[in-house]
């Protein structure tokens, strides 16, 4: 019996699946796999868009890591940006979700209103809004002055500008919040009842029940937000144009400048592969550590 089962003959109907899969197979090959492999090849080439790629070995990478000072700065700026925004966003989203996860009237309306900033994502409209609000004489400083606090050079001070841009990203914590709220609703109530009988306090319950129960969602958000943060472009480009003194010159901007202002396609591809490798390393570290801290209830 088992032997007969193993040899599976695919019917005509089974093969007809490929008609439905055809768009994706083509798209995956043409617009995903082919570009993915070519950017790796380009990264080892001298390639101006008008000419043909010429193999130059590791030259692009060597130049990036040894002579291009801008690159090291961009790398640091991007990592700092990721380090601020990802935890910032997740902590914010989780705190608000935990706070909203109670029986209060109008919870749906509140959730809706809190989500609004996230609608705008990386749009130019909110980037411009940020730019106006945080100008030296902008409304944020006016508010500070009214409260008898000193003005801050939100966008002009190299040590502050990146943080101001991070605030825009953290402001948009809505989608993580909605996911956390859904996850919190699924935490079995009897766990809390049992903990209460055992005399556990609210804080203890939060760290021993709530957090472990929602680790899959935390894990998912951590990965997706990190991938997104490492590729940030619009806010840095529109609000500060990478300045002041390259303090917000993220890797996404460096990639844009090399690729689409100077059309150094090989050099830009090398940058894109470094971004990709950073993403891979972080993702792999997170995945391999996940067995230690991510809790899947259906595994028992």
């Amino acid at each position: 019996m088992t032997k007969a089962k193993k040899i599976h003959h695919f019917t005509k109907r089974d093969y007809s699946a490929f008609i439905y899969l055809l768009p994706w197979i083509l798209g995956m090959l043409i617009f995903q796999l082919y570009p993915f492999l070519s950017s790796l090849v380009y990264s080892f080439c001298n390639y101006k868009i008008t000419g043909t790629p010429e193999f130059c070995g590791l030259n692009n990478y060597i130049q990036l890591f040894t002579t291009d000072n801008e690159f090291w700065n961009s790398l640091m700026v991007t990592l700092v940006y990721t380090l601020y925004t990802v935890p910032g966003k997740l902590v914010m989203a989780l705190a608000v979700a935990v706070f909203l996860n109670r029986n209060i009237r109008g919870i749906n309306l509140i959730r809706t209103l809190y989500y609004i900033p996230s609608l705008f994502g990386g749009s130019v409209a909110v980037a411009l809004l940020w730019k106006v609000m945080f100008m030296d004489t902008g409304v944020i400083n006016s508010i500070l002055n009214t409260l008898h606090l000193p003005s801050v050079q939100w966008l002009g001070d190299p040590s502050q500008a990146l943080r101001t841009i991070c605030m825009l990203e953290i402001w948009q914590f809505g989608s993580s919040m909605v996911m956390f709220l859904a996850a919190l609703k699924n935490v079995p109530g009897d766990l809390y009842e049992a903990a209460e009988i055992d005399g556990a306090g609210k804080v203890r319950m939060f760290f021993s029940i709530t957090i472990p129960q929602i680790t899959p969602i935390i894990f998912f958000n951590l990965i997706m937000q990190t991938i997104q943060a490492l590729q940030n472009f619009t806010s840095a480009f529109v609000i500060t144009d990478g300045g002041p003194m390259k303090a917000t010159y993220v890797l996404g901007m460096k990639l844009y400048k090399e690729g689409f202002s100077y059309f150094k396609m090989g050099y830009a591809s090398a940058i894109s592969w470094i971004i990709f490798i950073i993403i891979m390393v972080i993702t792999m570290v997170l995945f391999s550590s996940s067995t230690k801290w991510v809790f899947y209830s259906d595994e028992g």
Partner: protein
Amino acid sequence: MTKQQKKTVKMILSYLVIIVIGCVLLFPIVWMISAAFKTNDEIFGSIKLLPASFSFENFILGWKGAGQYTYTTYFLNSFLMVIPTTLLTLASCSLVAYGFARFNFPFKKQLFGLLIATLMLPNSVIIIPRYVLFNKLGWIDSYLPFWAPALLACYPFFVFQMVQFMRGIPRDLDESACIDGCGTFRVFWQILLPLMKPALFSAALFQFLWTYNDYFNSLIYINSVSKYTISLALRLSVDAESVVVWGRVMAMAFIAVLPLILLFFAAQKYFVEGIATSGLKG
């Protein structure tokens, strides 16, 4: 204090915190609307939320734009880019999802694994060769770089989401309803598609949102001002003038985000379900 009183105090405190957070979160949006009615003098160095007068001059002059094109052109361009992209995404992704969810074919596991892997493929690593490819095809300065990947289901997020949704629809339904041997496409078209409305709706909303907000791709693929989308036009309005009239910029920025806000309120159920069930990011 009695227990009842304690509860009331707690309730009031909760609402207070909720209102404070809400005010901080929504302040920028409210301020953007108010700035749309203000002059530069009112925007800078003042905390007054209400403008001196509710004149629509900023909207009228802002709409006219800086160059030879008005925002009518930019809006039409945006919709010409976004709407076909959204519709093509829905068509291609639902077909592919049908293939994965309802068929058993060779290398299914491997292909599905590949789909999941492309979920995490960052855009920046494929953007350069894509540009080179589109450049060779002569597609630069057209909306084809947006339409073609949508036609070919290059949005694994939506495929994955629809596969999950279709798996939730009982197989007996399509098998029994079409027991007389009707074709697989009719099963998809007449039975599954109508049942998939919520998934299609939330995919449509997010694809609309992402494509509409997108800036990087528009920036590299669209060159001539006559084809500019809203995001490019907004950026142009700041770059083109020596003295930026911020009230006009804010008026146009507000008009740019208005369709999103309206869409969100009209369809918030699908937004929330889309995020909560499949982890789509906004």
